[in-house]
């Protein structure tokens, strides 16, 4: 009880911070467009195990760290991933703006619906049509969000591999489906069905009285 009473104010502050962040970002974007985006974008790349680069980097690393390690046990190091930065292209700028807008909209929508449910339960109106609608909407967001993110990362990975093709290196933009989020979506959908039943029982009780 205490936790979800506390969650309401915390969520309201979070929503306010998101809106303020979006407003500040929009003002900066309109006033000084070139200052809005970072000059460089960083990607992570994996190195093929059997490649010359991997062997060369491992050797360079052991030479570099020779006699400089302070450890209780002998160490061996392998370089398998590196980060590279590239200048922000117009395509990357548009993508970054789209991703940011998407997350802000989704977060605000989700927070609004969660607040509706929390407020109603706090006020003793657990089973009503508003809660039912909000729960169905929350479950829809949880079910669709991982699918949208998966498609986005798939497109991004194709674009990055096409744009930055480097031998023996592969860009780490692959994205695994967020099964946890999907599970939460189904669970909340099941709870929405339970609430539908609760609403019916409540209406029957009211009619009897």
């Amino acid at each position: 009880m205490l936790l979800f009473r506390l969650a309401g104010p915390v969520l309201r502050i979070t929503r306010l911070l998101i809106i303020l962040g979006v407003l500040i970002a929009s003002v900066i974007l309109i006033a000084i467009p070139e200052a809005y985006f970072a000059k460089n974008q960083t990607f992570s790349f994996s190195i093929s195990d059997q490649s010359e680069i991997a062997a060369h980097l491992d050797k360079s690393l052991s030479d570099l760290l020779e006699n400089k390690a302070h450890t209780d046990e002998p160490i061996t190091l392998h370089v398998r991933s590196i980060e590279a930065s590239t200048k922000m292209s117009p395509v990357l700028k548009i993508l970054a703006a789209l991703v940011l807008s998407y997350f802000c909209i989704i977060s605000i929508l989700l927070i609004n619906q969660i607040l509706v449910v929390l407020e109603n339960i706090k006020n003793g109106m657990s089973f009503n049509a508003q809660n039912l609608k909000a729960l169905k909407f929350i479950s829809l967001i949880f079910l669709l969000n991982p699918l949208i993110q998966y498609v986005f990362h798939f497109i991004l990975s194709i674009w990055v591999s096409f744009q930055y093709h480097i031998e023996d290196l592969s860009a780490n933009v692959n994205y695994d489906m967020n099964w946890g989020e999907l599970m939460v979506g189904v669970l909340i959908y099941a709870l929405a069905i339970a609430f539908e039943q609760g609403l019916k029982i409540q209406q029957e009780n009211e009619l009897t009285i």
Partner: protein
Amino acid sequence: MKILRLFAKLLSIAKFILLLGAIFAFTSLFSKYSEDPVYLLPYRNIDLGIYWTLQSPEMEEEMNAMLNTDGMVEFRKIEPMVKDTFGHRIGVYIFSVILIVGFYLLLHFSSKLILQIVEGNIFDSKNQFYLKGISILVILYAVLTPVISQLLTEYLRSTQSYEHLILRSNPGSNVYALTLGALISALSYAFSIGIKMREENEMTI
């Protein structure tokens, strides 16, 4: 309803696959430790957010010259994998066991709850117990992950340190999981009201 039933069955299967996978992973890690060194870092795989980065201008220059990417990209950070020590392996094992037990219970409670709802046993004290269990597990995950990550990072910093290598800890924000835990906790409270309503309804009939 059919999809929900199917999903509940899938969750029950996932629960057993999780157990089998855990047994297989533990036995293979134990057997490997006695033979070859195993490179466990970076820890990103198990969500602890601990990783090493190498920051060396010499190596950056070397990389850029070797790859000859015509200035298209410039290499900044290099992430090496470090041979794990017995102490940190134990830390990872303990965290993995806690995580596996937690996920098993989460899958168990979720599948049971969905099956109960599909079968029409909605406002039941068992369901309220499952919902409470789910909310506690989600909140514990949100609270414990950064604590364990920080403890393990401090341990690693005290036992292994290298020049040019920086150990970073970034378990990420858990506000999302906390919000979810609060929402499920509120829904479990609503379920307790639903149970009372159902009892009243049955008494009237």
